């Protein structure tokens, strides 16, 4: 009887010892397995699909075609390259304004003031709002006939604009929507950066007679540089991948003239509207290469500025 108990106890001790010794992998492995299975494996599969002629049905047989799809996609000036152009211009424009307004608002909020709490709550609201709902909200506000924006314009004597309905105004309007929703994100990041800065260099500059503008330009902004690059990086990755508001604003294919079709929307359409899985995978692999290149360039910039 006692021997059974002790053996059970030693076995439990041994198990506990083993578990504690290998806790590093015991802790990390379930999550890592999940991520690898759900992410790494699909990415490899996407790469494989891009080398085949998979299309039609997910259960259909497919054959290896080598780099043919890459040739087809890279010479496609009808849908692919315009989508690249829209993705890049969308990202560059929204990043520019989000960083500009984000920095401006963060600087306004930096020093404490009365009513700060309410401004902070207002800043949080666009950020947490559901992007699809935000898209619908702007659809009403920019509606050419009943939207308040056009009514306001007409009231002050400016002709009504087509906004989302226009071939050339649709993309800029979606940029505006993105800037509305995500400038607050930049504000929050930069505000965290500003509050973590030490006050001394700025005090010193002021004692030396620097004006507010000079202190900002030559002391505060250079010190904030690493945080500015983080904000640029985080927003940049998401801006390249924008999907929800575009499809909410213009529907599948980015509108009937593909006015707002970015790479993300194009790949989605290829897969789930046309069942062209191989072509879609090719677009995605190329898209992925673009994203990784951007990140690589920015992180190198960040390391340079850190050293």
């Amino acid at each position, binding site marked *: 009887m006692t021997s059974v108990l002790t053996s059970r106890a030693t076995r439990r001790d041994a198990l506990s010892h083993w578990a504690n010794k290998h806790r*590093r992998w015991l802790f990390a492995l379930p999550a890592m397995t*999940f991520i690898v299975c759900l992410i790494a*494996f699909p990415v490899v599969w996407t790469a494989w699909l891009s080398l085949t002629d998979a299309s039609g049905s997910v259960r259909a047989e497919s054959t290896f075609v080598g780099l043919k799809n890459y040739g087809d996609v890279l010479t496609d000036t009808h849908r692919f390259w315009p989508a690249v152009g829209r993705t890049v211009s969308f990202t560059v424009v929204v990043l520019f304004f989000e960083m500009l307004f984000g920095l401006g608002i963060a600087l306004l*909020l930096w020093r404490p003031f009365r009513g700060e709490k309410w401004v902070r709550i207002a*800043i949080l*609201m666009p950020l*947490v709002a559901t992007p699809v*709902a935000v898209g619908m909200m702007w659809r009403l506000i920019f509606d050419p006939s009943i939207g308040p924006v056009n009514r306001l314009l007409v009231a002050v004597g400016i002709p009504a604009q087509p906004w989302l309905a226009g071939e050339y105004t649709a993309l800029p309007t979606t940029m505006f929507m993105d800037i509305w929703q995500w400038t607050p994100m930049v504000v929050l990041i930069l505000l965290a950066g500003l509050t973590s800065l030490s006050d001394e260099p700025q005090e010193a500059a002021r004692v030396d007679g620097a004006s507010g503008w000079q202190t900002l330009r030559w002391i505060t902004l250079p010190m904030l540089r690493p945080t500015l690059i983080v904000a640029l990086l985080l927003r940049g990755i998401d801006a390249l991948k924008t999907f929800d508001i575009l499809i909410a604003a213009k529907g599948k294919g980015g509108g009937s003239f593909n006015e707002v079709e970015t790479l993300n929307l194009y790949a989605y359409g290829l897969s789930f509207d046309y069942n062209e899985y191989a072509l879609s995978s090719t677009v995605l*692999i190329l898209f992925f290469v673009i994203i990784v290149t951007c990140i690589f360039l920015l992180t190198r910039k960040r390391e340079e500025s850190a050293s």
Partner: protein
Amino acid sequence: MIQSRRYKVFRFTMLVLVVLFLVLPIVWMVLAAFKTNVDIYDVAKTIAFMPTLENFTKVFAQGNFGAYIINSSVVALSATGASLVLGVPAAFAMSRFVMNKSALVVLMARVIPGISLLVPWYYIFSNLRLVGSLWVLILSHMFVSLPLIVYIMMGFFDGLPLEIEEAGLVDGLTHIGAFWHLMVPLSRGGMATAGILSFIFSWNNFMFALVLSGSSTKTLPVAIYDFIGYASIDWGALMAASTVVTVPIMVIALFTQRYIVAGLTAGATKG
């Protein structure tokens, strides 16, 4: 800081404009949700109008939004819960043992476009005949929440001193015991931060459910999207639907502001 009177006036004006710019569109949406379609078209009734609940009745009765609220809640809560269970120990291990390569894999998950995963997932899950089930939605949303939680919790554990754990070991706890009895209770704030953000991101997620949900497992963003059919848009109902989806999340944000800001800016100011 010495502020000139002029700067104070300038700052006040600018901030008022910023707040109006951010809040007015939302106010417009909520007002339209309480208007009849006739009133939405009427300039004279921009602010003064007879509020009606007709749109909300439509959304819940014909739009079946009650069921979608349940779907969205189940998916967001399950994905967040499962990600916390998997992610918190993993973040702890990665923080304590400086597992940089593993951390990099987690970070990659935040970079990859979701669509590049959707194609293979759709392949796999439709062959398993799982497309349209809540299980697939929970799994796919964990793709967003797990990396997020690992990332935030890693930063949190980096900030907890090693001495606490060592004190536990001196008192006779095992390593795992010290994690469970000391680190987990201490990281409640971090878990709240990570959990709330994960819930919000899952609630707002549109792309995964758009492909992987069936007619009975639709989540709220997909339900709104389906509201705009090919026919003319029912603006009142559409705005009511959008309000039903966004306002709860805004109320949550109002009460958990501190956590959300901490989570969104996690790691942003590290060197």
